[in-house]
């Protein structure tokens, strides 16, 4: 169904026309219009840089001498940030202050987490970070903050799996070919499954009132799925954990990035789609440098994939034309 309706009243009529009972005793106020994404980016970046200076300020002013003290200060800052976010929801400047305070607290919180995990267990550190960021994403009610928290949580989750059973010393690490792929699967599959579920159940969670949490989660998952497999698993060769990177790693990265592009298309978010395609291209560049396979092998695979994709594109295009012709014929009849 397609319609030219474009105001709140028109949409209400559309819903009534489709047989849905809508209580419209209090009409929704006209929206002032969304802020363009680059203005949101300025806000987010300013909060990050401000947080660096504020972290410096807190460190000099309070001088926490133990991880416990740093943790307590971080929790206090988080409580202040949460109160500001809830109480001053419509005061834009205070939201920014709260955002910067929260980022400062997150930086401080890394110290006790690192101390608790010890030098030998990076995965424990990342697991704590994952739980912490997930909690912040669920609790702190600011959309940009939620997207970042869920993205950090996804990154921490991937790192926890990626560095499982490893230590911080890169010279002693080694991951086998099979282990790399098992880790990739464990890290990526839950994110792909969750994203698919959220896409399929979009109408349900909007109706249940969870959009304020699920929408940022979905955006963060699209970014994570497109970005993380390529960045975090290709680094295994860079760190010397794998002698030669297999071509399968960037290929999996490309597939994940394309999945992210499909999800972004369903969400009708052009910048996310462009980001996902850029990630796919980055993985393609990495494929050139994956020394686990020869260039001739990679060339043969690329020919096979290219021909298959073009054939599928041709078949899909043809079925589209045929269905359009049959629709025209049925209309004429």
């Amino acid at each position, binding site marked *: 169904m397609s*319609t030219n309706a474009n105001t709140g009243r028109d949409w209400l009529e559309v819903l009534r026309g489709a047989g849905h009972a809508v209580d419209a005793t209090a009409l*929704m106020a006209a929206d002032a219009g969304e802020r363009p994404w680059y203005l949101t980016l300025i806000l987010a970046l300013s909060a990050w840089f401000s947080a660096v200076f504020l972290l410096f300020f807190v460190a000099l002013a309070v001088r926490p001498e133990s991880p416990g003290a740093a943790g307590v200060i971080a929790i206090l800052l988080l409580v202040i940030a949460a109160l500001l976010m809830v109480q001053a929801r419509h005061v834009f400047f205070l939201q920014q202050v709260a955002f910067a305070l929260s980022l400062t607290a997150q930086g401080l919180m890394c110290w006790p987490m690192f101390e608790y995990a010890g030098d030998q267990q990076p995965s424990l550190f990342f697991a704590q970070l994952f739980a912490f960021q997930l909690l912040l994403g669920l609790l702190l009610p600011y959309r940009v903050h939620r997207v970042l928290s869920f993205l950090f949580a996804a990154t921490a989750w991937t790192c926890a799996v990626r560095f499982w059973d490893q230590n911080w010393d890169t010279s002693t690490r080694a991951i086998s070919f099979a282990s790399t792929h098992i880790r990739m699967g464990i890290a990526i599959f839950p994110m792909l499954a969750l994203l698919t579920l959220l896409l399929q159940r979009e109408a349900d969670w909007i109706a249940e009132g969870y959009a304020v949490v699920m929408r940022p989660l979905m955006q963060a998952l699209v970014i994570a799925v497109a970005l993380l497999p390529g960045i975090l698993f290709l680094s295994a060769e860079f760190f010397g954990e794998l002698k030669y990177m297999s071509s399968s790693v960037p290929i999996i990265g490309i597939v994940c990035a394309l999945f992210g592009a499909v999800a972004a298309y369903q969400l009708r978010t052009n910048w996310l789609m462009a980001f996902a395609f850029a990630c796919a291209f980055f993985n393609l560049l990495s494929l050139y440098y994956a020394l686990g396979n020869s260039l001739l092998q990679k060339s043969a695979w690329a020919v096979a994939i*290219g021909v298959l*994709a073009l054939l599928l*594109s041709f078949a899909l295009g043809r079925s589209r034309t045929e269905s359009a012709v049959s629709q025209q014929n049925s209309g004429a009849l």
Partner: protein
Amino acid sequence: MERLELDRFAEHYRLSAPAVRTLLVASQAWPTLAGWRQFGVRVLRGVGIVSLSAAVIFWIAANWQHFGAMVKFFALDALLITCIGLACWRPPMHVLPWQHSRHQHVLGRSALTVAFVVTGAMLALFGMTYQTGANTYELFFGWAALGVPLVILARALSAWLLWWVVLVVAMVLYAPAHLVFGFWPSDAGRLQLHWLVPGLICTAMAALFAFISDRIVPRDVRARMTQIAIATAITFATLEGVHFAERATRPWASINPLLFILQTAVYIAFAYWAQQKRALAVLAMLAASWIVLSTVWLVKLVPNFDIGGALLAGIWILASAWVSVTVLTGWHRAWSKQS
């Protein structure tokens, strides 16, 4: 309907799941089956073309050592001639006397864009084969100069964007090593105009794109390229400002009045142009540049930067971003209402 607006709408009227589903379909927030098919065709076609191109590049790279110099040149020549031939067969515009079609062919545009890339590859191959001793920036400047007729004929944004990247890379490679002028006698006071001259070139290019005839560069491409040239100029100006602040030994005395006035004048001109054209992205770029430069100078000018300085800098960044975004959002809403 945008997703966030739809979320608010559903929350306000407490819509049921079937009603939300109806709204998602009716507002086309969910792509239609035809939309999915079109998207699938485009993505698969893109994947196919990119994969086959990658296969050719991988194959050439695998056999590079086995090809003689003449084979390499002939291969690139053949590719260039094929591209030009395709562009003549399906021209991107009505330029040739025997072409009567007014139709602008995508094939011709793409062929000329590829021809521009091949020109760069030929220059690189020439440099590698004969060891000319030329610097990398010379290759890029030469590539940009030789590519001008091709991108003008291509009449495509993608071709102009590629050309712009080549020109910017040439300037980035050239500027740091060469644009150091001895205006002051001591080494410490030498005026290192690393990024100022590239910034001024970009400003001049922005003016050129703004005023050049539609017959040479199509109107929509001109509009985009003007904005991109201004954005690049602002980036260079910001880099110059940060670089200048980093090297300043006596903060207040190091501010060169001439440079300060020049940069301010250019920023005001950009802001005026962006206001007139309602180019919010350019205004946002200017605001971001101002936040960066003012913060860098604040950190530089605060004596013995310590606890107070850190607090001041943190608050300054937040406040300046808040003011900028509030003003820009207000303009955005006013312009949206008017249009």
